[in-house]
């Protein structure tokens, strides 16, 4: 039995030990080599979202689909030349960064917003944005509301541990409004709460709200997404800090898929393009020579992955637009005219050159 005396002694001991050891210096940040670990293991472990149509759905039987999932497969294709050498693990909004830091996953591709505080404080580094988003609020269509500012006193359902929590808090306090927050751990719970009127509004990234609006409609619940965008939410893959070689791979697979789209390289024509590249940009992207010249090697992965990795990625997963088309377009997230259009079409999507 725990007796008071014993516990007191225990606590004193603990505090003394802590104080005695207080002289310790800073530990040196060890450099990680996730790429090496992945190659040794023979597969990639990707942390994804389990319950968001369009972005990441992890089915109970272990299969997965969604835009984030496509990038996981693209990474597996880049490293192993086989898009199926990837294992999916659910990362919830509340535990994703811990899972990444504890090496439970190699890369986190889970609609994660790139923010300064996360970059600075957490053991996480962000790769390029794969989707430009912003937080919004969705309400039921029969509510007499046309703006988030009408939601004074409302109860809002939010996923726990998301940057949306902060965005909603900021917006309401800046506008002198009050609200109650009902935080939940997973989207199905939020959905059930929203349907059952446990909350008046559902706040999340607008793109995801679109997907949910769509599935709600299928169940006969009409909802509208309110016009205000409460925040900037650039979503993309993230890896651990001090792990630059793996970070490079992730970064350039994403960039490569964007460039492939700009250059018109698709799943269907990549073989032909590799055999006969139309220009230097495509030749460098695919790691081949232009007009019979020496094949280019940009040095991503320092020889541990093929210099032709983008050929595998595009042949098996496709370019940015193709991945988008297969997943997000299907849940009603129109790309044309959105920030996620290529810069050539007036969007924000712009990749640094591969050279």
């Amino acid at each position, binding site marked *: 039995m725990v007796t008071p005396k014993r516990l007191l002694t*225990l606590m004193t001991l603990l505090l003394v030990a802590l104080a005695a050891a207080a002289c310790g210096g800073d530990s040196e940040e060890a450099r990680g080599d996730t790429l090496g670990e992945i190659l040794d293991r023979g597969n990639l472990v990707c942390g994804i979202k389990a319950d968001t149509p369009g972005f990441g759905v*992890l089915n*109970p039987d272990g299969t997965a689909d969604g835009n984030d999932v496509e990038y996981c497969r693209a990474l597996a294709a880049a490293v192993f030349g086989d898009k199926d050498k990837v294992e999916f693990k659910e*990362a919830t909004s509340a535990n994703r960064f811990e899972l990444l*830091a*504890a090496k439970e996953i190699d890369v986190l591709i889970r609609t994660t917003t790139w923010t300064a505080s996360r970059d600075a404080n957490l053991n996480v580094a962000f790769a390029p944005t794969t989707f430009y988003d912003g937080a919004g609020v969705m309400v039921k269509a029969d509510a007499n509301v046309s703006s988030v500012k009408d939601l004074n006193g409302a109860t809002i359902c939010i996923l726990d541990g998301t940057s949306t929590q902060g965005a909603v808090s900021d917006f309401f306090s800046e506008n002198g409004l009050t609200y109650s927050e009902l935080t939940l751990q997973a989207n199905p719970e939020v959905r059930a709460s929203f349907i059952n009127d446990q909350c008046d509004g559902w706040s999340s990234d607008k793109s995801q709200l679109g997907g949910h609006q769509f*599935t709600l*409609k*299928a169940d006969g619940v009409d909802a509208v997404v*309110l016009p205000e965008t409460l925040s900037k939410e650039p979503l993309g893959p993230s890896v651990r800090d001090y792990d630059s070689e793996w970070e490079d791979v992730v970064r350039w697979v994403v960039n490569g898929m964007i460039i492939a789209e700009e250059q018109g390289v698709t799943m269907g024509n990549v073989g032909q393009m590799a055999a006969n590249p139309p220009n230097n940009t495509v030749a460098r992207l695919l790691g081949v020579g232009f007009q019979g010249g020496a094949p280019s090697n940009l040095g991503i992965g320092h020889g541990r992955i093929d210099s032709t990795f983008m050929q595998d990625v595009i042949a098996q997963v496709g370019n940015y637009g193709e991945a988008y088309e297969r997943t997000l377009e299907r849940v009603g997230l129109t790309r044309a005219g959105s920030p996620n259009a290529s810069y050539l079409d007036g969007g924000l999507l712009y990749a640094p050159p591969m050279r």
Partner: protein
Amino acid sequence: MIGALPNASALSRRAAHARARLFNTRTNTALSIVAIVVGGALAFLLARFILFEANWGLVAINRKLFFVGSYPPDEAFRIWIAVFITAVLAALSYGLWGGRLRPYAIAVGVTALLILTLGLGTELRIEERQYTEEIQSASGQTTTVSGIERELVFDRGWAPTWLYAVSLGLALPFGAPWLLMAAVFALLVVGAMAGRRLTRWKSNPILLQSIGAAWVLLIPVVVLLQVGVGVDKWESAFLDLLVFAVGGFFSFVIGVFLALGRRSPYRAISVASVTYIEVVRAAPLLVWLLFATFLEDELGPVGEAFSNISLTYRVMVVFAFFGGAYIAEVVRGGLQSIPRGQYEAADAMGLSPVEKYAVIILPQAIRAVVPAIIGRFIALWKDTALLAAVSLVNTLEKAKKVLGSQTDIAEGAFFEIYIVVGLVYWLVSYLLSRLGGAAETRLRVGAR
């Protein structure tokens, strides 16, 4: 495991006795009315839900997920072998030391009948339907999108709905698992009968030790059977049972050593044991689990090495060390109950300290606290529900995923699915507690 049914005349006598007490005084009448109203209302609500309101098809179509999750179907034999060994051992043990055979056989038979026959002729499938919808976007424009709607189609077999409902959606349609399940039920009965034949030798130390050893060996055998299947494929009830078995076994070993350490004449050993026990017991299991999950280099190179082990194994380690601290306290109680004379006698016989504890003291001490140890095992089994909190897919987490993933069909099935998952946890705890009860009775009878 069903308690002995008294014979008919005893039953009616008892009923008459009970009736006589229901309305004999004013207080008893009032109590009866309250009990009848409360109990009746609960029974009515439960029956109405089970028989008429629930949609057990949702449970039925997902039942495999609740037991083995996404375990690769080609490797299912590894689990079946474990199930067969367990069934044979359980049946033999019941036959040898258990209660009456007939009620046991009837219980197994009725369960088998429900699970095996009700599913015959039923068909469950998910139908997908393409559909298009118009949705309004924030800026007021409408877009047309298309999607897939899933619907659960359930063609019932020969049984009426209410009878199907009683089987709680666990009924198996015909197929390979059906045959294997039938074999398991048959083994449960045949094994028990074979065990009864052997009763003559039930106090034979060789038989006792070999069956005891078989139970203990079952754990490594089940784990070894998994070689070749990744740990990440262990899910649902199978994961819960594995973590419980491995964690429980090692927590017992650790607990015994800690209890001995606590009573050690060497002060350093007893202080170390007490410190360990109190530190572990001070914090909730959840905190230890979260710490073991998210620990990276906070505890230097040792912590980092630990964090490189697969999470499932790490959780087993936490269960073993956490459970050990509690079992140590139980075993300590047993050690305290051993009269001083036993120690003195052992010393007088010239036994070494190791012999003294292994042969004389520990067997008596542990015997005295078997029910309490089983109580700790029940707690440990229920604690496996917490694996859901550290992103391992146990039965509870699988239930949440099933509820979430096929939102189109499983929506609103919270009651059905939580009831069935609760039944899985409840059944194991209940069987364990019956085992504890039986041990208590037996020990009391045999008390010296």
